[in-house]
């Protein structure tokens, strides 16, 4: 299927389609995608860093794969994620509020989650709406649950989504990296540091 579909911030539709079903293809190793278009990874790094720096509430959503030190790689990634969060926090203006909100598990919770402290893949929009999050990055979330969330977010919020995926990437994010490692996360932090001061902060 040839594609004209662009993966853009919503709110898109009552039920937005899966980007893969609209012809968006995942990048190959060494590549990334921006809005569904395959690009080289550095280009996506810059766009992701700019999104963090220009958002009112830039937020990282770490998932279960990096929240527990179940292997050495996970522990290293967690350290890198903390470093990225600290870098964003140091790089934004006082009017911006960087957040780090975990997705600790995937259990649907009723009557509802506490959006102050967590995000859930079954209703991620609640956390985004509550905290007025306008740019976010998923990392360490199992691919199925990340895609579930990313479509719901695109459907009902205006949040700009970034996926730092350890596997093949996510078409349903606006920017997606694949084969994520601790080094790749640190590289994104370097991009944030590099662009600090050169990106216009959000207007009130």
């Amino acid at each position, binding site marked *: 299927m*040839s594609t004209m579909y662009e993966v853009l911030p919503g709110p898109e539709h009552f039920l937005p389609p*899966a980007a893969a079903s609209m012809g968006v293809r995942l990048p190959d190793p060494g590549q990334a995608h921006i809005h569904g278009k395959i690009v080289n990874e550095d280009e996506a790094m810059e766009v992701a860093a700019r999104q963090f720096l220009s958002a009112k509430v830039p937020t990282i959503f770490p998932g279960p794969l990096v929240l527990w030190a179940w292997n050495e790689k996970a522990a290293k990634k967690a350290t890198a994620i903390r470093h990225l969060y600290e870098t964003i926090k140091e790089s934004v203006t006082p009017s911006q509020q960087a957040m780090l909100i975990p997705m600790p598990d995937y*259990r*649907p919770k009723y009557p509802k989650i506490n959006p102050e402290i967590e995000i859930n893949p*079954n209703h991620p929009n609640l956390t985004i709406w509550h905290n007025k999050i306008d740019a976010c990055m998923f990392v360490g979330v199992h*691919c199925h*649950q990340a*895609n579930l969330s990313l*479509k*719901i977010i695109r459907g009902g919020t205006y949040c700009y989504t970034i996926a730092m995926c350890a596997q093949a990437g996510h078409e349903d994010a606006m920017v997606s990296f694949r084969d994520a490692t601790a080094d790749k996360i640190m590289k994104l932090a370097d991009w944030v540091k590099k662009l600090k001061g050169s990106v216009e902060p959000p207007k009130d």
Partner: protein
Amino acid sequence: MATQSLVGTKNRAGQVVEDPWKMMHEAERTPCFFTGSEVIKEAIRRANCDVMIAYPITPQSEAAALIGELFAEGFIGDYFRGESEFAVMSQCAGAAFGGARVFTTTAGPGTMRAMENFPMWAGARLPIQMIVTCRGINSPLSIQPDTLEISYLLNTGMLVWHAETAQDFYDWILKGYMVSEEPDVHLPLALCCDGFFVTHTKDVVNLTPADMCLPPYDPYRSPVPCMDMECPPVRMMRDPFVMKSNYISYATHASWQQEVWAAIERSRKHAIRWLDGLIEVDRPDAEILIVSSGTAVSQGREAQALLEEDGIEVGIVKIKTLRPWPGDEIREATKKAKHIIVPEFNVTGWLAKEIRATIDDGDRVFAGPHVCGGMTMPPEVIAADLKKHLGLKSESLAGRGS
């Protein structure tokens, strides 16, 4: 990846784990004269399978029994018979949830009896491989070849491939695991063939070395957590969030379904690489094309030769995968065709309907000939129907002694 690091090590049966691409494309092949059922056994011997669960139903019983021999020889981690096809497919799910590479076989009424499990497998993202040796499903009972059951599988969320020959079968069983276990796909595969025509016919099949096997399944690359009883999809089944009557539950379930179908789309890239395209085209410039899947393609080839003797040039399009559906490929392959003939071994002509819905000017599709209930499809019938469709004279094949 973890699987790469295991290349060169030995599995439980003493086979050497090989890079799968090298094993399938570069390893020396040995020609063997086998039935389709024996070919299934030989593919599974090299598939590094953890679990096979069996239940007898013709025409897959022989393959299921032969795989029991593999278990006795140490090539399969576990092997047992379920209480019914429904039980088998549920047990397959249990094994796959636990992180095992799972294989099973079924046919006809067995497929239908187990049907509830297939969308569950897909929704739970379990890359189970199921061989479907198609046969009649309706009353009165028929154990003979008939592909109607494939049409029921098309909307389950499974990958559905349709093998033409025993060689396809051998290669696609092994390649099927490589595609279906990709983390961006991670879906069950229904690998179908026409029962008896493939399973009980002997053919020369080129086999890879028996001392080589695929890398083991790595459940840590799964897009869902492996056997976490507190999380979907496992928790989903004991405490379904979709049972809650609110918008959030519905939206979650909708997004979940979309994700399954997105995964089928993602399999396209991998299937194209492993199967060398989703379709195969012979004589793409012909104005008349026979387009089909399974052994109807083989009969189409014979009809092509007959028609050539009469000076009628016919091309062949072999459809390898039904899910993912090769829509772009079929549109491209048929763009010059004036007549598209779709022979099928089923009463409804489901493949012709899919093709008609895919291409511009669907009136070019001639849905036929159809045979079913175990009837053979002589190439003379395809040739005669095609001539009749073109308004040419052809001999009647139905009469006796004429």
